[in-house]
């Protein structure tokens, strides 16, 4: 725990804190005994990091090995989780992965030197050198990251995210302390932000400095800064990475924003699905308060800031700023009509500013290094770097920090390309209110808003999902249509009614009952949805619109051809027994959850009325049954 230093100027107080933190961190970087750090983050935990850590702890205890144990955050290489870093007394750090409980002994032996560091599990070095192990930076996954190293997430893997002293010793809170030391007035801070052209990272790219100006010049002296950490887009987890990997960075960003806008209160609204991020942010806020970096009289100045972490409860539309504000103040998190914008009337009807996690987290480095340094990377329209999370049918699932404007084709290469046997079919970006683009547009796309907008698409908040050719885009469109329908707050009839119609039509199509007038009706629903009051309703038909435009052939194959070439859409496929003699067929019969495989051995068949197309039978007996297109049934002309 870092405690407040009672005297001196803000910088002197800050330096007293870092003077105490520096040796702690130096000893962590170059420890006396080897140390094993297991990455503890949501991704590693899902991959079994807890079991890995327990196993390593047990081996160390049994063998009485002279090693210490610690933790860090993963580097973004999620396909290699659980990641483990071994730091040797000479300061060299080697990353290994994936390390399950079975590899615990090997890792301990590597740390103690009984086994050479060059194991097949070694991924790369992050500090120092080890013969035979390449630097982690040389891994193709990092090919697009800034040549001079990561900027926003440079601490990930190099610090213990739950240790404030590590943050302080690596330059943390220096930007805020120097700012409070009166080297910069609030107006200067805002100007620096404007010069850096830091745009809103939620996807809108609205200049953060300009937005801060609105709040700073708003009437009254009770202003609030609000951090939108309700990262609800499926496939996007970049905000979680910041909060779990470097929580004090967000606290410092909010402190800078509060100072620049004259705010004395702040909220960090985190989605319920991120318990580790909530715990780490709450701890960071408590630690910063104890150190005198939050609360009353920050670093001995007259600046006050009370930060609170609010835990959401599972409502996608709370990611819309007025919905989020409504959710904070004890009511249903329903968006309202704007204006008034939050800078006019925000939380508790006081002027407020809402920004995304990543937007605030960028502020410390803009203030520390200046706008000129910040704009070294990126494009004319979008400055700096940003975090992206990549998932889907690619070899390397994870997150990286890349300058705006890098080509999408390069991203696919960095992610190792598609899984064996798969071709890229579609790029899904921007979440359920975002877009779906075909693989043929890849050469035209780079990681910034403009090329996406040109295609009536949205790059969005950082999540990109690459879909292979085994995926049916109509089926995927149905998933997003259902999502936006369920998450509509219900205030606008256009939105809750329109999305019901949209989902109904798509669902009927994948059930094999597409109609000729559907396309026209979907366009009508789309136009009607534009009259919704918030972006949820306005953007909700986007994916369906994209699908009809870019995957028009596939749509027509479903609608009038009644065929799903990807063999996904329930109403257009069937399962059939192809090999009565396959011994696994009995297993398939036993696994079927609806007992749809009927008949005695030698005469088994699939009862189509009972079959739910889950695929459990072909999972256990891939050579006994087949998933195939359903033969077209004659339709009664009068009804079609």
């Amino acid at each position, binding site marked *: 725990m870092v405690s407040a230093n009672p005297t001196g100027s803000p910088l002197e107080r800050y330096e007293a804190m870092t003077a105490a933190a520096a040796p702690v961190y130096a000893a962590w970087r170059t420890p006396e005994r080897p140390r094993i750090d297991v990455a503890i983050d949501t991704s590693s935990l899902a991959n079994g990091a807890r079991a890995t850590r327990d196993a390593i702890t047990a081996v160390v205890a049994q063998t009485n090995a002279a090693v210490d144990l610690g933790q860090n955050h993963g580097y973004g290489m999620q396909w290699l989780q659980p990641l483990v870093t071994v730091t040797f007394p000479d300061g060299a750090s080697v990353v290994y992965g994936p390390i399950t409980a079975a590899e615990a002994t090997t890792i301990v032996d590597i740390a103690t030197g009984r086994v050479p560091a060059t194991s097949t599990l070694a991924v790369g070095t992050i500090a120092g050198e080890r013969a035979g192990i390449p630097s982690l930076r040389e891994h193709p996954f990092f090919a697009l990251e800034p040549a001079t190293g990561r900027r926003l997430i440079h601490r990930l893997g190099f610090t213990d995210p739950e240790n404030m002293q590590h943050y302080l010793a690596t330059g943390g809170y220096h930007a805020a302390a120097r700012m409070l030391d009166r080297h910069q007035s609030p107006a200067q801070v805002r100007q620096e932000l404007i010069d850096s052209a830091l745009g809103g990272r939620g996807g809108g790219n609205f200049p953060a400095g300009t937005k801060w100006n609105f709040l700073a010049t708003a009437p009254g002296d009770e202003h609030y800064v609000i951090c939108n950490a309700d990262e609800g887009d499926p*496939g996007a987890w970049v905000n979680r990475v910041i909060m779990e990997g470097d929580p004090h960075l967000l606290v410092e960003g909010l402190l800078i924003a509060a100072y620049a806008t004259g705010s004395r209160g702040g909220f960090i609204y985190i989605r319920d699905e991120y318990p580790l991020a909530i715990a780490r942010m709450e701890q960071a806020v408590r630690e910063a308060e104890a150190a005198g970096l939050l609360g009353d009289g920050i670093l001995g100045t007259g600046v006050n800031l009370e930060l609170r972490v609010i835990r959401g409860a599972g409502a996608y539309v709370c990611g819309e700023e007025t919905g989020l504000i409504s959710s904070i103040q004890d009511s249903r998190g329903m968006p309202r009509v704007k204006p008034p914008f939050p800078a006019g009337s925000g939380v508790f009807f006081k002027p407020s500013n809402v920004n995304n996690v990543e937007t605030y987290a960028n502020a410390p480095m803009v203030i520390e290094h200046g706008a000129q340094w910040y704009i070294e990377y990126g494009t004319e329209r979008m400055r700096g770097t940003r975090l992206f999370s990549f998932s889907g049918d690619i070899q390397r699932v994870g997150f990286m920090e890349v300058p705006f404007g890098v080509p999408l084709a390069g991203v696919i290469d960095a992610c190792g390309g598609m899984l064996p046997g798969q071709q890229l079919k579609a790029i899904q970006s921007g979440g359920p209110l975002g877009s779906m683009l075909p693989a043929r547009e890849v050469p035209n796309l780079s990681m910034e808003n403009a090329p996406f907008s040109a295609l009536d698409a949205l790059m969005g908040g950082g999540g990109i*999902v690459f879909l292979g050719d085994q995926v049916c885009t109509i089926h995927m469109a149905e998933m997003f249509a259902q999502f936006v329908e369920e998450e509509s707050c219900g205030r606008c009839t256009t939105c809750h009614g329109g999305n019901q119609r949209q989902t109904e039509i798509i669902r009927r199509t994948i059930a094999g009952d597409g109609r000729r007038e559907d396309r026209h009706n979907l366009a009508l629903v789309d136009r009607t949805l534009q009259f919704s009051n918030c972006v949820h309703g306005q953007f909700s038909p986007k994916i369906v619109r994209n699908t009809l435009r870019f995957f028009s052939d596939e749509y027509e194959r479903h609608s009038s051809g009644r065929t799903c070439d990807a063999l996904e859409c329930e109403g257009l496929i069937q399962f059939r027994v192809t090999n009565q003699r396959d011994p696994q067929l009995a297993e398939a019969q036993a696994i079927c959850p609806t007992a749809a495989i009927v008949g005695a051995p030698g005469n088994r068949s699939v009862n189509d009325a009972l079959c739910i197309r889950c695929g459990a039978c072909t999972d256990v007996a891939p050579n006994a049954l087949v998933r195939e297109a359903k033969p077209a049934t004659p339709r009664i002309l009068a009804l079609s």
Partner: protein
Amino acid sequence: MPLETESRAQIRALIADLRPDHGDLLAALHRVQHEYGFLSREAMEVVGEQLHLFAAQVFGAASYYEEFRFDPPAAVDIRWCSGPACRARNGGGIRDAMLATLAVPMDGQTADGRVGIRLGQCIGTCELAPQIWIEERATHTNEVVGNLNAAQAVRLARALRDGATAREVLGQDVLRG
């Protein structure tokens, strides 16, 4: 004001430090649900008294959110991830297989209250797609089961339905069948 019973006093103690007009409602509801597993009518009344809100306002707000529930939860909940990376790998088939095995609708639970299945939102562990989470109420455990196929989902749901604990199904044997 209704009679102060022992159970009301316990709920009140749980949220004693929370205040009206302070943005404390979500925190209050989370605390109650963490302790009791769901929000009872009584709990929502006490929360309302504490925060100077009508019980109807508390229910109105609480019912907006996916996470809050108003009936006792199942002993073990299967959370099915609805994200795109999971859907791209037969996530829908896994859902349907589990619903059919348990003979319950989404967000429902078996008649004996042993197993429930609930919609989950993407948490960004898509390297494990398609996946589910096993949440056990008694131990507050939450374990991800990834790289699942429909057959494994059926085995897992059957084992839970037939009395296996979360710990038992998380062992690989159940998944292998």
